[in-house]
């Protein structure tokens, strides 16, 4: 009897007693703690991302401007075309560097001596001569005239104007001597130095001269390579995923294949590079450094990701849709192509974009097939030698010139922009194909 009353009294206040209140408070505290851990994790991630972006942008934004000097250039006939032939061959082979030198000498007539003159000439980029040649070849009537031309300064002068070579350190510790610093100051005082948007960086290929080096070659190389990767890994990956998920019987062989695909997804990327070297280059004799081969290697690397994501997406399609289609007499292929695949497509696209993003940032496997070569020309096709953005970053990060520091960061910025564009395209595609009901 007393036990029964005890049980009853316990039952009535089991959720209202002080102990119950304490239990409840503990539960809420645990919940708040858990949310705080989450917030903390997100905070760390955001902080790291912010730091990364600030350091890259802070270091790289100067690469998007370039110091140039406006020189009065005398397109002297006796230098360019002494016999007045007007022949392009003659014009093309003329000594344009001499024009640059003489207009520099006009600016500083009292500089004498070989060494001083060489130091003076070193202030202007060697690209200035090429620029003059292109101007003359485009318009031969320039010969014999005199006009103001804006030519790029050398990388050291550029660094000086951007403040990376400081005048307050000892002469022996900087790349420019006191005389050169004086000349640059003089040029600036005369209003001849300008800071303009660096179109060279965005439109030309790599160069040994930092002021002439551009990212466009690597951008084109990356685009071609990723195009090959996408065209190979998307159809093959989707076909494999559909077969394995929808048609293959479950037996030892398919289990073996599944285990292997999962393992391949975790294989270090350089192994795929070695595979490409052994199979595509040495066995099939495909060209070295080519986007075609790079794309094939990256496709091999990306395939497991696409297949795994594709299978997961197909598995997520409710079986009732399959039953509905089969129930009205659709064949298995019609069921998959007309009902299951469209519903799985957004998920497959997500997996593909993850794989492609990884391929975009990959440099190790491409080193093995020669895409690390120094390539000046913009690649013109799938088999022309080229490099890709991450390899370009690696190459520039490895270069000793001070001016390549900003180029490296700027190249990373271009790489990130490329990534954002790619993801944006994927999001738009997803949104287009996602069924809203």
């Amino acid at each position, binding site marked *: 009897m007393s036990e029964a009353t005890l049980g009853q009294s316990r039952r009535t206040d089991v959720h209202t007693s002080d102990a119950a209140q304490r239990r409840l408070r503990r539960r809420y505290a645990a919940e708040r703690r858990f949310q705080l851990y989450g917030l903390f994790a997100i905070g760390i991630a955001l902080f790291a991302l912010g730091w990364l972006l600030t350091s890259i942008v802070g270091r790289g934004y100067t690469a998007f401007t370039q110091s140039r000097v406006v020189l009065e250039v005398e397109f002297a006939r006796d230098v360019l075309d002494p016999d007045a032939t007007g022949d392009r061959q003659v014009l093309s082979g003329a000594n344009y560097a001499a024009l640059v030198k003489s207009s520099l000498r006009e600016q500083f007539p009292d500089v004498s001596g070989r060494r001083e003159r060489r130091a003076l000439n070193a202030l202007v980029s060697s690209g200035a001569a090429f620029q003059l040649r292109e101007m003359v070849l485009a318009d031969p009537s320039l010969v014999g005239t005199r006009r103001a031309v804006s030519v790029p300064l050398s990388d050291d002068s550029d660094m000086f104007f951007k403040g990376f070579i400081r005048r307050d350190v000892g002469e022996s510790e900087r790349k420019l001597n006191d005389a050169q610093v004086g000349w640059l100051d003089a040029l600036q005082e005369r209003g001849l130095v300008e800071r303009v948007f660096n179109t060279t960086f965005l439109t030309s290929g790599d160069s040994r001269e930092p002021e002439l080096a551009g990212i466009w070659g690597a951008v084109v190389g990356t685009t071609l390579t990723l195009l090959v990767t996408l065209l190979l890994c998307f159809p093959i990956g989707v076909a494999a995923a559909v077969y394995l998920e929808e048609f293959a*019987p*479950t037996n030892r062989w398919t289990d073996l294949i599944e285990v292997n695909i999962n393992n391949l997804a975790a294989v270090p990327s350089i192994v795929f590079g070695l595979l490409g070297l052994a199979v595509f280059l040495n066995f099939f004799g495909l060209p070295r450094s080519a986007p075609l081969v790079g794309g094939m290697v990256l496709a091999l690397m990306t395939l497991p990701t696409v297949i795994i994501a594709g299978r997961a997406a197909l598995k997520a399609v*409710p079986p*009732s*849709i*399959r*039953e*509905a*289609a*089969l*129930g*009205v*007499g*659709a*064949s298995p292929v*019609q069921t998959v192509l*007309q*009902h299951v695949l469209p*519903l799985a497509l957004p998920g497959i696209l997500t997996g593909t974009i993850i794989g492609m993003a990884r391929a975009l940032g990959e440099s190790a496997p491409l080193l093995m097939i020669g895409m690390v070569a120094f390539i000046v020309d913009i690649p013109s096709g799938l088999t022309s030698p080229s490099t890709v953005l991450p390899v370009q970053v690696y190459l520039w990060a490895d270069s000793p010139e001070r001016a390549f520091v900003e180029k490296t960061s700027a190249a990373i910025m271009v790489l990130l922009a490329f990534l954002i564009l790619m993801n944006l395209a994927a999001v738009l595609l997803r949104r287009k194909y996602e*069924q809203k*009901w």
Partner: protein
Amino acid sequence: MALASTLPKIVARDVDCFYGDKQALFCVNLDISEKQVTALIGPSGCGKSTFLRCLNRMNDVIDGCRVTGKLELDAEDIYGPDVDVVKLRARVGMVFQKPNPFPKSIYENVAYGPRIHGLVSNRGELDELVEWSLEKAGLLGEVKDRLQEPGTGLSGGQQQRLCIARAIAVSPEVILMDEPCSALDPIATAKIEELTDELRENFTNVIVTHNMQQAARVSQRTAFFHLGILVEEGETGKIFTNPGNERTQDYITGRFG
């Protein structure tokens, strides 16, 4: 000809069904008559859905599922080696437990079957067939003005009737219904039951149900399954008023199941 009409539409003899090592059906013998509603009743897991899915080979997609014995549709072996499953499923349509319209428009849901089977030759015929099917399924009045809206936007009962319209649009000879009302409210259920009764004119109907009253209301014949065994089969009236088997008696009076 007169003889043919008395022949059962579907004949099952000694049908066993296995999922891997587990046997789900034991030696089922059942005749299903043409243009009648046959109800399959029994507690959960008794094999009635399994039997239903054997009739249009929907079990084929389940790994490790094996059917032995003789199953005939119009004296043709359903599991024969040269049977075209696609054709079989066109002749034996199915409505599932949970309404499963395609994530497409109402029109497309109904038009899909006729289109893949090539039953119509032009858009006008297709429009007509879609309208006829929706009318037959008692849905046309409710959706006439919004055929292009998504089928998944309809209410549960409407969705199930859309699935019935989708099934009859293919002009099957037999319609299998696997607990078509289990996810529906009483009003929607009443509509589906009414519909089942009307469809008897044109189709042979096999319906699996948990609801005893429903079986009594809509069917002419009833088969009671228990633990994979067909316990008893006969006219619905007789099964519910005067069952021959003690287990049937226990089940329909609610003593187990």
